[in-house]
């Protein structure tokens, strides 16, 4: 009797699992077709030879990967490190990192402010933070442009006040890109920070003060270690899209203001070197994966582990 019920429940379990695969099939197929699957194609393309008018010729070649790292001089054939690629990757990494820090410096107090409001008004403040992030990213980039362009409000105000006689050039600089990225990605930092801070046990802070900690001491030695998961999550959420940003540098950066995203696009557009573009894309994905792994590992190792 018991063996029989066991068999029935076994069968039922199997059916349930099969049903669950069936139910999730449409979503999985969709993502496989237009999200994960094409990535495999990018990897394949990075090992092919470029066609004469874009696209590829179907023969195995590692030239694209060679070109990611090195350039061959067209006259004497000497091989040197591909400075252009390195400098663009390095510049993108610096800009993304600076954006991340700026978002953290602005976002942490903001998230803390929201988390310490009365429970009823918190969702309103939170809503105020998220509103801009649900307006089109392009529109927000355009809005930043309105503020910093030569005839924008900053320059207009400065000139009316007589601080400067000629408009300050802010557009088409790295500063413009960084400002734009901070503006666009700030909510991505605030939300995970808030999620961590909301769970913070303020009795621990009270205990800290009872033991004569200064408010900076409480911040540095109690609050920050406790909300570390939120800091990590927010930093990754800002760093990753900033590093691979395409629209913001295209609109706010100048001709010299390329970032990795624009470099990749260039290979598929004017450059007509699809394998190189594919190889650069894979390089970007690898860098992001490595950065995420390093970051998560480093921060989880260095203390704070006792609090989970």
């Amino acid at each position: 009797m018991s063996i029989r019920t066991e068999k029935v429940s076994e069968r039922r379990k199997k059916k349930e699992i099969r049903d669950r695969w069936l139910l999730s099939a449409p979503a999985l197929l969709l993502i496989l077709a237009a999200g994960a699957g094409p990535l495999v194609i990018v990897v394949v393309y990075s090992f092919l030879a470029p066609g004469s008018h874009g696209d590829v010729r179907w023969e195995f070649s590692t030239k694209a990967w060679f070109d990611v790292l090195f350039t061959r001089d067209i006259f004497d054939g000497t091989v040197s490190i591909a400075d252009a690629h390195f400098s663009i990757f390095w510049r993108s990494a610096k800009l993304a990192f600076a954006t991340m820090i700026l978002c953290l410096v602005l976002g942490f107090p903001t998230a803390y402010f929201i988390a310490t409001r009365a429970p009823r008004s918190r969702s309103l403040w939170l809503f105020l933070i998220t509103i801009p992030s649900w307006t089109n990213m392009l529109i927000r980039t355009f809005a930043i442009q309105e503020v910093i362009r030569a005839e924008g409000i900053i320059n207009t105000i400065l000139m009316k006040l007589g601080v400067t006689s000629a408009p300050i050039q802010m557009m088409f600089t790295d500063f413009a890109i960084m400002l734009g990225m901070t503006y666009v990605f700030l909510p991505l930092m605030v939300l995970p920070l808030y999620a961590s801070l909301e769970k913070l046990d303020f009795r621990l802070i009270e205990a800290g003060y009872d033991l004569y900690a200064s408010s900076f001491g409480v911040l540095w030695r109690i609050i920050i270690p406790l909300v570390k998961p939120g800091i990590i999550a927010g930093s990754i959420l800002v760093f990753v899209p900033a590093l691979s940003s395409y629209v913001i540098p295209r609109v706010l950066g100048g001709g010299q203001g390329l970032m990795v995203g624009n470099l990749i696009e260039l290979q598929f557009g004017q450059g007509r070197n699809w394998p190189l573009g594919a190889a650069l894309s894979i390089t970007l994905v690898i860098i992001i994966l490595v950065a995420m792994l390093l970051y998560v590992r480093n921060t989880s190792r260095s203390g704070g582990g006792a609090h989970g």
Partner: protein
Amino acid sequence: MAESFLIKRQPGFATIAVFCFFLLYLPIATLVVYAFNSSASIAGWESFSLRWFESAWNNQKVIEASLRSLQIASVAAVIATASATLAAIATTRTAPYRGLTFKYSMINIPLLVPEIVTAVALLILFSRIKIWTGYSGLGYLIIAHSAFCVPFAYMPIRARLESMDLSLERAAADLYASSFQILRYVTLPLLWPGILAGLMLAFVVSLDDVVITEFVKSAGQDTLPTYMLGQMRRVATPEMNAIATVFLVLSLAIVTIIFFLSYTPRKGKN
């Protein structure tokens, strides 16, 4: 209350927070205000006028791009939400089974892979298929948008499912309802606000997309964001401000509805 407030206080934080909110809204406010300026230049304020809204309304390209955006976003949002709902039911409130983590990571792939890389990947894939089949309609954009909208639709639906009380479904099962009947008459009606929020979220996300659309679209298939991107390289007239303002109002209306749909009054102290 006052005492606990003092304990929570960190010097300077409130100032930075207020500054942050100010910074977040200043550029958007500028953009909107100057949409109503009669002058063609953004430099100075002349007088209140609706001429740029009128000029956008009479711009055939803007209207076409807007309609195309709405069309793609509605179809993609429905496809994404339908598949995300099924996937959410399949992945919640279940004993862990083999493949569950695989499903989670698959669903999140569109969030993790940089948009530019997905865009390039789809450019490669679809340009092949366009040559093979000769079809170059909106289908490609709809498939691409549906795919990256799945995780956005999935999130609120899953959250709703996880916070839902199981007892009603158990009661239905005790009364010999089939699993389909439970789904149809108990789970789905309770899940409805989550599904609606997911649908709208997917709609907004699709409406906002620039990068993937820019790479996947065929000639003459501009959506409103790609049209704007093209225009932003040239001299911008306040017509752009007007278009942006309308777009903004639309997004905000949808997001406000989502907020109230997913808003559940908190009980208890915290």
